[in-house]
């Protein structure tokens, strides 16, 4: 009922006058949330339907998003929002299920591995229970199944398999005839995510070849090599998809490049690696000012406000000593250190005070 405040322009205008906010429908959220958290308007809620163990450190979360969620294409990712100890944390994960499943029963899955020291992934593993409601953003990303069909090669590592699972399931269900090969690198056989599903796909889908390599099960450990690629028939004609840890992605890119496979035929998707422990040496980094579309680099303990001003931007500011919050601004990615407390921020989207925030590595802010 309250959604009319979003749909009708007149009522939306009226709502803005009455509630002093650009999303008037969300005015009632604090009360509605108490009655049924799926009625919240500020973000798209999704209910956790079930949670399965994939491996010792990986779980699959089955989510049922609210009806207004717009859906996705296989291989895309979503931002999720979770309140951990009073703080809303936003993180990006790939959807591991196929859009066919979402159309059939309204559920999607996220397959998430615990990251050592990872605030959100560990919280989800330890505290998220079926029945809970989390925030789910619209899907985005251009890691997409080849259309029209053509031969494909997937190289995945560890939990980088998640968007690949979504794509393989979708291809299998849509009668994909061109050859598809997956080279899946894991540490040990016990780390294979969705093993059953992968083997089931391999047995019922003739065009699909599955090869799993447990790098640490052999001596010396086996990493991606020329030989692996030699064994993929007709590799030069294949569209290549990479998802995994940075080392594997770099190696794969390099090997494929040397085989003369053009950049436009290699698709990579992000993979969130655990962030290293910060030390004072790690201050500074590339700063991207989104709205101005400006890239600058910073060194040492320069704060973002000074960096922005040096780049001829004029962000709003006040006391320049961390008191008045005039300069508070959205950071969309990257880590900053608070000059006052010495504490590092999270890597995700959040509000920071420009006048006391020092970049630690690449940072992107809404300025």
């Amino acid at each position: 009922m309250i959604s009319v405040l979003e749909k009708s322009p007149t009522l939306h205008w009226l709502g803005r006058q009455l509630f002093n906010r650009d999303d008037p429908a969300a005015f009632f959220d604090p009360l509605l949330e108490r009655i049924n958290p799926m009625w919240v308007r500020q973000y798209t809620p999704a209910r956790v339907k079930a949670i399965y163990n994939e491996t010792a450190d990986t779980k699959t979360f089955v989510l049922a998003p609210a009806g207004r969620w717009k859906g996705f294409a296989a291989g895309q990712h979503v931002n999720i929002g979770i309140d951990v100890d009073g703080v809303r944390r936003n993180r990006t994960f790939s959807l591991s299920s196929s859009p066919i499943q979402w159309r059939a029963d309204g559920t999607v899955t996220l397959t998430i591995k615990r990251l050592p020291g990872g605030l959100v992934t560990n919280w989800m593993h330890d505290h998220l229970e079926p029945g809970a409601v989390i925030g789910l953003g619209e899907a985005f990303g251009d890691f997409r199944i080849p259309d029209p069909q053509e031969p494909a090669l997937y190289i995945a590592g560890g939990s980088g398999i998640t968007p690949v699972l979504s794509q393989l399931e979708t291809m299998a269900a849509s009668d994909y005839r061109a050859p598809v090969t997956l080279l899946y690198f894991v540490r040990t056989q016990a780390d294979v995510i969705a093993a059953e599903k992968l083997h089931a796909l391999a047995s019922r889908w003739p065009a699909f070849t599955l090869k799993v390599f447990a790098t640490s099960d052999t001596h010396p450990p086996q990493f991606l090599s020329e030989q692996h690629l030699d064994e993929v028939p007709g590799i030069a004609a294949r569209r290549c998809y990479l998802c995994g840890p940075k080392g594997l992605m770099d190696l794969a890119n390099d090997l494929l490049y040397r085989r003369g496979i053009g950049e436009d035929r290699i698709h990579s998707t992000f993979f969130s690696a655990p962030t290293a422990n910060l030390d004072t040496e790690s201050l500074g980094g590339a700063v991207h000012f989104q709205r101005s579309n400006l890239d600058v680099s910073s060194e040492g303990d320069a704060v973002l406000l000074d960096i922005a001003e040096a780049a001829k931007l004029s962000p709003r500011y006040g006391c320049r000593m961390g008191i008045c919050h005039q300069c508070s601004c959205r950071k969309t990615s990257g880590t900053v250190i608070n000059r006052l407390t010495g504490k590092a921020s999270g890597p995700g989207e959040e509000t920071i005070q420009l006048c006391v925030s020092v970049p630690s590595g690449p940072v992107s802010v809404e300025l």
Partner: protein
Amino acid sequence: MKTMNETQLKELEKDLDTIRDQVISDLGERDARYIRKIVRLHRSLEIGGRVLMPFGFIPPVFLAATTALGISKIIENMEIGHNVMHGQYDWMNDPSLHSQTYEWDTVCTGDSWRRTHNYEHHTYTNIIGKDRDYGYALLRLSDDDKWKPAHTLQFINYILLSVFFQWGVGLHELESERIHRREISVREKIPFLKDFFRKGGRQAFKDYVFFPLITFPVAPVVLAGNIGANLIRNLWSSTVIFCGHFTQDAETFTEEECEGESKGHWYLRQLTGSSNFTGGKWVHLLSGHLSYQVEHHVFPDLPAHRYPEISEKVQAVCKKHGIPYNTGTFAKQYSTVLKRIFGYSLPDRMRNRLLPEFRNRAVG
């Protein structure tokens, strides 16, 4: 003002930073639950007040509806809006409680408030000539202004300011006194005035046009109730705010004293320029915890419901450094505010005779 050397100021800074760090490291679930509970209380009171108001032709219902709406506006302005806009809850990363985008239920725009209050008032607290909140360029409250015959009537100005407080706050950034002195032109204020009329119009439309109109047969009742609710909020918030810096012992400062000041000196100024009043839990809630004005000025971006918890520590720091901690009952503090407003409306000699506690030593 109490004078302290740089070493002592450094020590003061360190002591207060310790209190701040303890709270910051403890922020979490409890604070989030608190502010969300207050937001729910606000929504319930506002919805309750608006729904009851058309039945206000029954006198007790009129009283209940007007009170509910008035209190909802007080809570929204004082405990939610003011505090959220200070960035007290930015760490929650909740877009509805974000300092830079929050817009409150009053005439003053959030942007104007963030400039005049968060930045000017909290940075230059009680520095005469820089903190325009000291007397709102409308009242003579210290000897820094020379007495003029017009000041005799300032008590009337004070009452008018309190009654129309939301409009006064909304127009604060116009800096009419500087326009009057021809330091700035009206033209420079056009963008501000546009925002003022947009927001002021929106507030007036809501309370004085829209809600009366949709309840047409009882429109006069609804209009009266909405005026009443705004009046309750105006009188209360004005009173609370006046108790924050204009009590008898709240000090003022000169620009020279504060030039190139250290963080420690800034802390000292906040401690000596602000004043608290005591009261029950509800008094603190309805004042947005500005009853802990001292704690608020020292730590403007700590969640306000924490002020009662850290008050003892702040008092201990004051005691250690021999800094006065200005507090008293609401009645006592407010009576000194009224005396100050009255006293400074009089010629200095007459004030010295009638109100020796506000004595001007330069005059016999």
